[in-house]
């Protein structure tokens, strides 16, 4: 059974004070399986973040259904098994990374000892140990991104949903996130992430979906379906050209 299921999901945004509608997603059907690393790619404005926000119940589908581990995405209890990193995360200014992770653990009913152990390990892995007590407002963009990853992982979830996890990271930070996703794969976690860094998706993912103008144009097994002597980047550009580029 797929762990993440999007069945015929469409999302239409209505502009305030006007009758104009924006069709952000069109009948999207996607399934991600247990233990799979799933890459989600598409140009800016293709609808990747919209799809991810629908999975997290931050917005609701206009039509279609989304289920996570067999439960409806609107069930707040299901988020106990999900770790989410939004695009450009923003946290409370005056909290430290330690306090942020304590909140993350407590909200998932973890006990204090388990939170402490996980916090130490995660902050060490993400190179934030020295800044553990500094307020988050003093963090750089890359550090905020890594603190967000630590928050997503604190409760050891089965499913990780990352919206552009590499964004704003320097090469060392990118390498850390790359290694982190590899570790998550070894632990049998399901990772669903969007990225513009096609080379990373090609190296990390089992399957990838290409979304253009809210429509799924290609779903491929990265190891088997890539034509010989073609990279994922080549396939991606072909798809963009086929659809005539991005709509206004």
């Amino acid at each position, binding site marked *: 059974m797929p762990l993440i299921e999007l069945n015929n999901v469409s999302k239409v945004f209505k502009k305030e004070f006007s009758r104009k509608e924006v069709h952000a997603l069109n009948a999207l059907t996607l399934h991600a399986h247990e233990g799979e690393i799933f890459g989600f790619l598409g140009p800016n404005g293709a609808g990747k973040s919209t799809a991810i926000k629908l999975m997290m119940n931050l917005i*609701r589908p206009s039509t279609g259904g989304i289920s996570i581990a067999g439960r409806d995405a609107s069930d*707040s209890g299901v988020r106990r098994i999900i770790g989410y990193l939004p695009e450009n995360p*923003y946290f*409370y200014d005056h909290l430290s990374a330690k306090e942020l992770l304590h909140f993350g653990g407590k909200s998932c*009913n973890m006990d204090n000892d388990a939170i402490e152990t996980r916090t130490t390990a995660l902050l060490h892995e993400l190179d934030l140990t020295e800044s553990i007590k500094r307020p988050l407002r003093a963090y750089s963009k890359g550090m905020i991104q890594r603190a967000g990853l630590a928050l997503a992982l604190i409760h050891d979830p089965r499913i990780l949903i990352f919206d552009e996890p590499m964004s704003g990271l320097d090469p060392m930070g990118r390498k850390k996130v790359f290694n982190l996703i590899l570790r998550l794969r070894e632990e049998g976690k399901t990772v669903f992430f969007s990225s513009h860094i096609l080379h990373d998706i090609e190296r990390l993912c089992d399957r990838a979906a290409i979304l253009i103008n809210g429509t799924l144009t290609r779903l491929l097994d990265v190891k088997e379906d890539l034509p010989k002597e073609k990279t994922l980047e080549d396939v991606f550009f072909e798809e963009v050209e086929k659809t005539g580029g991005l709509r206004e």
Partner: protein
Amino acid sequence: MSGIISLAHITLKEGIRNRALFGIFILALLMFAATIALVNLFMRDIVKVAVDLSLSTISFAGLLMVVFIGTSLLAKDIDKRTIYMVISRPVSRTQYVIGKYLGLCFLVVVAVLLLGIVSSLPVYISSIMYKNPQAVFSWKIYFIAIVFIALKLMLIASVIVFFSSITSTSFISLVLTIAAYLIGSTNETVKGILDSKMEGVEITPPMAFIIKGVYYVFPNLSAFDLKLQAAHGLALAEGYLLSVPLYWLLYTGIMITAGSLIMERREFP
């Protein structure tokens, strides 16, 4: 439940560490110091003046705190999308609203407790320095008045929660809260004028309907004002002491329930 408590906890921490809070406390301390310095300018009823000024200071500083820090803690969550870090956890929207409100209430309790303790100093000093055997002053009523100020501030916090659930920017939420405060502070006086049918004051039926509507929709904040009773040591009726907290419970309950229902339906694109 742990989601609500942990959210209330970080909301309190965020509030306490907000730099605006230090500014508000320094302002309150200066006002308390000014109370000690100024009361001797009054020829009589010095303790009454000290009580009045001290309670006004708590109320004013508390209002600044709850309005500015409250809107920044709640509406900014939606404005800047910090709400993602909470509702992407196993925390429902209703739990989010309750947790945020509880955090604001904890902040009000801590602030009013501190201000209340500090405010007793000018009252105590004036009562020692300017002893007046005829003056009727009761510490009990003074502290009840402080508790009522805390209730008033928590009621305003529930109004902030409601406005934050319907608006997308912290500025609009701030403006609406200030408007609700101004109406809530004066609506009893305006209704009093309507009910007294004063000569020379002509109120048309539609206007009377609007005034009554405003009176029942907006919070009646003057019900929480016990400055007069505390300054003059007037006994408080038991019915009053019960009905005001009950009104607070009802109004706050409506605001939080309405805010939760709206948040449950809202989208955060």
